[in-house]
């Protein structure tokens, strides 16, 4: 059995798998962590890994537009959005999430289940992945857990954050499944939409806070039936 030097693509897929795993870890930390600021940091790190994956993909099959995606992710999700949310949180002055729907132990248990589900759903398509293995599974898990995070937390900010992690999952899937990510125009559109969405959400959170004197979304329950 001889050791021959690994091709860049093999190394690439190793790295991608590693980063994907990292994203998953951060996601799980997000689920248990209650401090809002820490949550934002964790999200930033997760996005950083996503950018890294994009970069690696771009490098491996030297596709310029994937670099662009990486850069956009870096600017948007790693720097701009965390900064924005950070500002919001400081302005509002609420530091931590109180009484989520499920406590940490239950959450972890459920997330384990979602991970399982993610992998099960992704299994048939591992053959299609050209880079990394089971990245798709990770992506699916990210989406599911992000979703879980959304209805587990009550603070508007956390829900926005969760939404963004779902987005991350989707982008990861895009990279994992299609080698090159989506066509550039789509990527741009998605990025643009994301920014606007966060702006709008910010505006709403602000208005809600000033008319409800809180950003606890479980207080938003006057519309019934």
């Amino acid at each position, binding site marked *: 059995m001889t050791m021959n030097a690994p091709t860049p693509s093999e190394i690439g897929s190793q790295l991608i798998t590693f980063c994907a795993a990292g994203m998953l870890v951060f996601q799980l930390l997000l689920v248990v962590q209650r401090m809002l600021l820490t949550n934002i940091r964790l999200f930033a790190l997760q996005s950083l890994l996503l950018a890294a994956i994009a970069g690696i993909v771009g490098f491996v099959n030297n596709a310029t537009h994937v670099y662009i995606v990486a850069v956009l992710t870096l600017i948007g999700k790693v720097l701009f959005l965390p900064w924005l949310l950070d500002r919001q949180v400081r302005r509002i002055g609420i530091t931590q999430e109180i009484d989520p*729907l499920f406590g940490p132990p239950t959450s972890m248990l459920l997330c384990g289940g979602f991970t399982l*589900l993610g992998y*099960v*759903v992704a299994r048939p398509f591992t053959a299609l992945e050209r880079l990394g293995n089971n990245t798709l599974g990770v992506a699916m898990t990210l989406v*599911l857990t992000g*979703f*879980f995070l*959304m*209805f*587990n937390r*009550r603070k508007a900010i956390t829900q926005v954050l969760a939404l963004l992690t779902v987005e991350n999952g989707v982008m990861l899937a895009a990279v994992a499944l299609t080698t090159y990510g989506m066509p550039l125009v789509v990527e741009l559109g998605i990025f643009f939409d994301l920014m606007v969405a966060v702006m709008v959400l910010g505006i709403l959170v602000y208005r809600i806070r000033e008319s409800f004197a809180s950003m606890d*979304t*479980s207080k*938003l*329950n*006057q*519309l*019934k*039936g």
Partner: protein
Amino acid sequence: MPYNMEFSPGVLLALALTGYLLGAAGALALWKRPRAARWWSFGGAFVAATCGLCAAIAALVQGADGSSWSVKLPQLMAYLPMDIPMKLRLDSLGAFFVLVVSLPGLAVSLYSLGYARGFEGCRSVAALGALFNVLLLAMTLVFVAGNAFLFLIAWEVMALSSYLLVSFEHEKPETRRAGVLFFIMSHIGTGCLILGFLLLFQATGSLDFGQFHAAGGGLPAGKRDAIFLLFLTGFGVKAGIVPLHIWLPAAHPVAPSNVSAVMSGVLIKTGIYGMARVFFDFLGAPPNWWGVTVLTIGTVSALLGVLYALMEHDLKRLLAYHSIENIGIILMGLGASLMFVHSGHPALATLALIAGLYHTLNHAVFKALLFLGAGAVLHATHTRNMEEMGGLAKRMRWTALFFLVGAAAISALPPLNGFVSEWLTYQSLLQGFGTTESLIRLMFPISGALLALTGALAAACFVKAFGITFLAQPRSESARQAQEGSRTMLLGQGILTCACVFLGLFPMLLLRLLDPVTQQLTGEQLSGQLTTAGGLVLSTGVPGAGTISMLGITVAGLGLLVVPLVLWLAFGRRARTRIGPTWDCGLQGLTPQMEYTATGFSKPIRMIFKALFRPRREVQREYDFSPYYATTLRFESHVEEVFQTRIYRPLNLLVLRFSRRLRALQAGSIQAYLIYIFITLVLLLLWTL
């Protein structure tokens, strides 16, 4: 042939339809000028109805071979991928029912000319006139629709316009409730009809009635029975059969009386038309239980209808309940006919069918007449409560006379039309006994006996209705002030009264008109066998099974008037007549309070049928010194409408409670909403594995 007309029924029908259309349109155009609108719309309706009448008669006379006359409409709604020939088809059955709608229609239109004046100033006469025309138009269209699509459109327009007419005086909450109940029931029925027709569509691949003919034959039994039940329910709601009748006594009274007349006289007959059309024309040879079901429903409806009518002291509600009774009688004819078709006795089936159809026309005539009379009374006394009436026979002589004739007719008293059709029903039931060996045949005499009970109770009910309303002293000031209605109102009632007498004395003319109808439905023509002695005597078709001649009876009766005359000449010529007070047991004269009330009149019946009515009574006495002499006494007595309280109310509550439970799903928590989506997602993902 006494009536050989050259002009085509088609032209006349087209004239009638356009007449209604113009009547409606003109009324809307004259919105601001009630008087003009009244004359235009109801005049138009009168002309149109007359054309319709001629069209029907002409078609029945010419189409004696069962041929149908049809016209293609301009291709409205032709954009559907299915091909739906928009064609009106005036076949014999349709023509007969056009007759049923047009005859009362023209009388009621005349009546409305005077009646609607009462609305001028307080509410829109134009709307009334327009809707009235639309209603008549829609009903006529229902009878001549050539395919299920057109039929359903006409059916729904009919329901809509009648709903609006029922809610015409929408300020009263009672009216609004009644309207909604009516429309909801009617729409549930329509749902059944849609499914029924579409099942036939599924079978034949077409919506054309021509294609539907005997389409049921090819279907598997289960599907046929499903179709039968769907149509029975759908048309049954409209016809007001028990237990689907609850909307009827609520809706008919609150409508303006001319509308009640049309609704009770004709509208509910659209259900009968549908049943005749579907059961005899579409579904092919019926299994026995269909006929048994229809006969049973008919008997039950007849009996319960009249029993509840007896408990009413609201004149119009009373009449409405009688509609249920008469629908029952009609259905007895139809049901028996179905059974005979099954057992292979076409002639007998035809006899029963004729009985049903004849009663359909008769009921249309005398029920419209009675409602018009009730309307005149309402118009004069401003109340529907019989306990506040009385003594009207002196103040409204003609109305009283017309109402009396109507009452006698609906109580099936000779020599009027009601008796003739019930006689035919009896005869068919009687002969039905021989058609089968099974125990089923006991149904015929039993339901015959129950029909007799029904008839007798109806007589009791109308003695009460006429006696309390028109006889004795007025029970209220408004009754004392009552005035006779306007000339057109009397004319309208007069026409129907004459129709009652005519249809009683000369049934054979109508029988000849019925020939093509029976030819179409059962393949037999009986008018020949049914009339003997130069067409003056009605027989059962079977030699020696019984004959009757209202004409003969009338003549004999008039002839025998000689006897009292002779007696008077012999003895009584010197006897004089004085007007004196009624015997008052030596009190200071009788007051209206001492008269028998409507409630009191029906008390024995209420007691006898306790089990059904579950009467409740509340008596409150107040004394000042001795427990034996009450100073004030308050007495209340209620009768329970079993279907209302035992079936519909619980059902309604159940649905509402269920829905309220469901509202908990939309409790406002966004977390919950997210979870719904999440669960859906997970389930679907698992599905794809």
